[in-house]
């Protein structure tokens, strides 16, 4: 038995090797025929130095000179810069000692040096990755409200039909001798009355300080009991805006009999000079009250619809992928294509193209597809089909390569034609891997189609990203739940089918 623990036969003495590694880390190892070890040490050291220089440059923003920049970086992030610097120095010295020891004892060097290299890169990775465990913990409470909505969104799954009721009263601005009368009360209808029925708007003084306008008392009755009621204004032109007091919207709650009373200060509005004179404003109380039965919310119906779309999107992509990848897989099967130089060339070409296509994520294909065919599920189908052809083409071709040549030989020997040989000897062997890979792909495609909408490829991801952007976390939560349920169910089904078929 030969082992690598033999004495090195290189004609380099231990001090030479040690010195060489002191000047160029790893050089000593290379001299004593530990070329790979030497290259690894050299490569790690150079890249660690390069990465440190880059991060120092970023930390010591706009500081000229190497030393000033390093000092500044050391002051700002002492732990990171210090640890990496010390690590690199130790590595350098260790490399030299390692070369010396190996050359003198002939024993192979230990693994310790590689542990150090890994440690240095870990520290670098921590800083480059901007890892901040502290933040992850401290910001959790702020993230909790939206998170909880996503986790349990079902409050927004069903809603009642709502009805808006309201009543308004005219306010004269400014007051004159002839203020408007309160509106007439109609039995059974909500009613509001302002007291007084005229006043001054709030305005700004020369220092942009608000001068409060007149106060008035708004009394309402005939509203729904125990319901939030909003106060709105309508200016003489009919523009509506919600009443704020101290920056906050004003909401009052009605009492047992549907009554309320609230003190208001007339709002501040820019009024064009041409509008000077007698102006009638309106103050209005509005209620939104639920009526009728529970019904599925828009978020729920949309999610269901989009989920169906998603499943079909994945299915169509799978079908197209399977159909198109079959011919491709023949071209990518070495045993079929090793006949001549030309076919071998086609084989290598097909393999290469498939590998390139496969290495590009379906999301990126979706972005490209959206550019070509526009937003919507078709773009998603195109993207997933492309990726499926490449993935299935590879799997199928490997299945073809793995078939047992024995039965083929036997069928050929009976005098069968090529086609008969394929049908009787090749196809039966292909069915199990074919079914298994196809179902596996269907599974992946539906999974992918749930997120392909994030970039405009249709399906449930399309509305999910919109809900997230609108900060409608409950609706987003419903979409997320549907995705999770579908994927889980599909997982189960595909495993079950594969188990039965294969």
């Amino acid at each position: 038995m030969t082992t690598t623990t033999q004495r090195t036969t290189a004609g380099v003495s231990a001090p030479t090797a040690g010195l060489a590694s002191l000047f160029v880390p790893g050089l000593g190892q290379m001299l004593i025929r530990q070329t790979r070890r030497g290259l690894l040490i050299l490569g790690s050291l150079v890249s660690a130095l390069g990465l440190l220089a880059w991060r120092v440059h970023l930390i010591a923003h706009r500081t000229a000179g190497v030393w000033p920049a390093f000092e500044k970086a050391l002051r700002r992030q002492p732990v990171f810069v210090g640890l990496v610097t010390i690590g690199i120095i130790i590595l350098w010295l260790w490399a030299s000692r390692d070369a010396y020891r190996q050359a003198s004892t002939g024993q192979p060097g230990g693994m310790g040096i590689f542990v150090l290299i890994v440690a240095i890169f870990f520290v670098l990775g921590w800083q480059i990755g901007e890892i901040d465990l502290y933040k992850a913990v401290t910001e959790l409470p702020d993230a909790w409200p939206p998170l909880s909505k996503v986790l349990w969104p079902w409050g927004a799954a069903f809603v009642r039909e709502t009805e808006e009721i309201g009543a308004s009263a005219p306010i004269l601005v400014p007051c004159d001798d002839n203020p408007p009368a309160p509106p007439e009360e109609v039995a059974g209808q909500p009613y509001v009355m302002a007291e007084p029925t005229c006043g001054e708007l709030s305005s700004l003084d020369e220092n942009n300080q608000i001068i409060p306008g007149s106060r008035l008392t708004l009394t309402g009755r005939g509203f729904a009991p125990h319901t939030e009621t909003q106060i709105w204004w309508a200016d003489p032109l009919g523009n509506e805006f919600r009443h704020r007091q101290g920056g906050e919207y004003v909401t009052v709650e009605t009492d047992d009999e549907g009554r309320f009373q609230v003190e208001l200060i007339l709002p501040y509005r820019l009024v064009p000079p041409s509008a000077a004179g007698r102006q009638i404003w309106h103050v209005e109380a509005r209620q939104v009250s639920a009526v009728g039965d529970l019904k599925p919310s828009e978020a729920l119906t949309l999610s269901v619809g989009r989920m169906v779309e998603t499943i079909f999107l994945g299915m169509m992509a799978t079908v197209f992928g399977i159909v198109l990848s079959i011919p491709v897989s023949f071209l990518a099967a070495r045993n079929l294509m090793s006949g001549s130089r030309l076919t071998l060339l086609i084989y290598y070409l097909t393999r290469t193209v498939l590998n390139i296509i496969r290495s590009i994520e379906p999301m990126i294909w979706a972005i490209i597809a959206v550019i070509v065919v526009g937003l919507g599920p078709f773009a998603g189908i195109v993207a997933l089909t492309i990726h499926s052809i490449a993935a299935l083409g590879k799997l199928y071709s490997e299945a073809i390569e793995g078939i047992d040549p024995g039965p083929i030989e036997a069928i050929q020997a009976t005098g069968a034609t090529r086609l008969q040989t394929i049908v009787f000897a090749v196809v039966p062997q292909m069915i199990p891997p074919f079914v298994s890979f196809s179902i596996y792909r269907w599974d992946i495609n539906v999974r992918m189609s749930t997120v392909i909408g994030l970039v405009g490829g249709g399906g449930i991801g399309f509305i999910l990203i919109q809900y997230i952007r609108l900060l409608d976390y409950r609706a987003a939560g419903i979409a997320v739940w549907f995705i999770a349920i579908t994927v889980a169910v599909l997982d189960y089904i595909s495993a079950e089918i594969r188990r039965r078929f294969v």
Partner: protein
Amino acid sequence: MLEIKHLTKIYPDGTIALRDVSFTVEEGEFLIIIGLSGSGKSTLLRCINRLIEPTEGQILWDGMDITAADAVQLRHIRRQIGMIFQQFNLVKRATVMTNVLSGRLGYVNPWASLLHRFPPADREMARRALERVGLADQAHKRADELSGGQQQRVGIARALMQQPRMVLADEPVASLDPVLAHSILGDLERLNQEEGITVLCSLHYLDLVQRYATRVIGLRDGRIVYRGTGDDIRNMTDAEFKEIYGEEAVRVSVGPHAKEETR
């Protein structure tokens, strides 16, 4: 019936598997080819029905050169030559019936057969072939549910479906235990004697050779190094033995049921 002239096979990687092999096979013979593994037995048998393309030489089948046959002619020749294999080479996921029926592929309408449609006469024939090898009740099992000996019998039934004039058997019993080996070779012997089917069989063990062969050819490194009858094997000299199996081989015992071992 079969005449092999100066057959040479060189694989693309340069391996010379057969060197200038010549012999003839007469109708009704039970010809056994012996030789170490790697001596070229499989290559020789596969050259005969051109599962492997010979590099040089001629193979005459009733005077017609197989090596020069076009696709249609080759099909016609192949279907007259049944073949059974060491690894049985059944389509494992197909039923026994389908495997047996596939022996008819050289005869039936190629297009109909693609839909697994076979004439009723062929199905009847398949049933009889299975009956003959004692597997009538296994017709609808999957081939890989059968034991090794049963699988080889299915292989024989498949070959029978070709109504062959000759059967090529490439170490048909090498994967089976000795008792089964005798029963499989016995089946072949019956075909040979009762139906006059010529058998060309490669074997490893000499005691089987003595029992079944009417004629023997010894191969070593792709060359024919021994020619004799079944009786000659019984009286084989050590020199002849070493010629076939090499200097290091040891004959474990000598006698009517001698067993040989090679190292």
